[in-house]
């Protein structure tokens, strides 16, 4: 049983990220310098993923990709470079302020194969079988309805489509005092 309602969790996450300041500290931990060198500095500074799922997604030219919880767009931009002009990447995020930042970074990169959309991972605003691949980075762990979000991913993937999810997992039970803290919803 989650300690937080959906509404509580969304409020905590949105209010935190809409005022987040970047530092490159996360990107430097997760990505290679040569990968970061080709991206807008703002997207690099505002990377808040927890791993590098695009590296494991096996993306090829022409594929349709959904990046759930795209934030300021670092993985969306990576994916767009890999699928090329014949492919398409949709970045989805629930926080308008982060989408505004992502729009700026997409424009700065000149990527014309990216679309940005506002929406929730538990109710993806796309028809069935819309995508070949879904990536997500440090986002599923923020949902209070993870199975619902995963079922939505299955729905919007074509048969044979793939997911690559970067996430945080616990190897043991946290003390209850920690689990009741609002920031504990991230793990």
């Amino acid at each position, binding site marked *: 049983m989650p300690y937080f309602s959906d509404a509580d969790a969304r409020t905590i996450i949105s209010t935190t990220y809409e005022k987040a300041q970047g530092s490159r500290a996360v990107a430097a931990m997760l990505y290679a310098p040569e990968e970061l060198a080709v991206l807008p500095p703002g997207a690099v500074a505002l990377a808040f993923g927890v791993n*590098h799922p695009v590296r494991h997604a096996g993306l090829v030219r022409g594929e349709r990709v959904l990046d759930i919880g795209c934030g300021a767009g670092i993985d969306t931009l990576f994916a767009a470079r890999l699928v090329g002009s014949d492919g398409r990447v949709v970045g989805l995020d629930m926080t308008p302020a982060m989408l505004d930042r992502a729009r700026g970074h997409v424009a700065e990169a000149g990527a014309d194969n990216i679309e940005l959309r506002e929406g929730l991972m538990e109710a993806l605003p796309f028809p069935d079988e819309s995508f070949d691949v879904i990536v997500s980075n440090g986002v599923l762990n923020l949902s209070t309805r993870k199975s619902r979000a995963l079922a939505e991913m299955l729905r919007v993937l074509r048969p044979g489509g793939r997911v690559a999810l970067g996430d945080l997992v*616990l190897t043991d039970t946290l003390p209850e005092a920690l689990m009741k803290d609002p920031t504990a919803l991230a793990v």
Partner: protein
Amino acid sequence: MLRKKLFNVGFEAVATVDRRPFRLADLARYPLFPPEFLDFVRRVLPSELDHDIVQTVVVTGRRPISSTPRA
């Protein structure tokens, strides 16, 4: 647990393809974890658990060619 959730909703070929420790020092890089929370964690969490209680993973899976969701 995450792999099991993917399997339960209907994904196949579910695998963990990357797994690394994620320590308190790593959490400190994120806006969701302010200093006061990290101080709280240090007080509550036995120090020996900091090395492996949270891990970062990449889990992959595939939608079967022919399937209906299990959940």
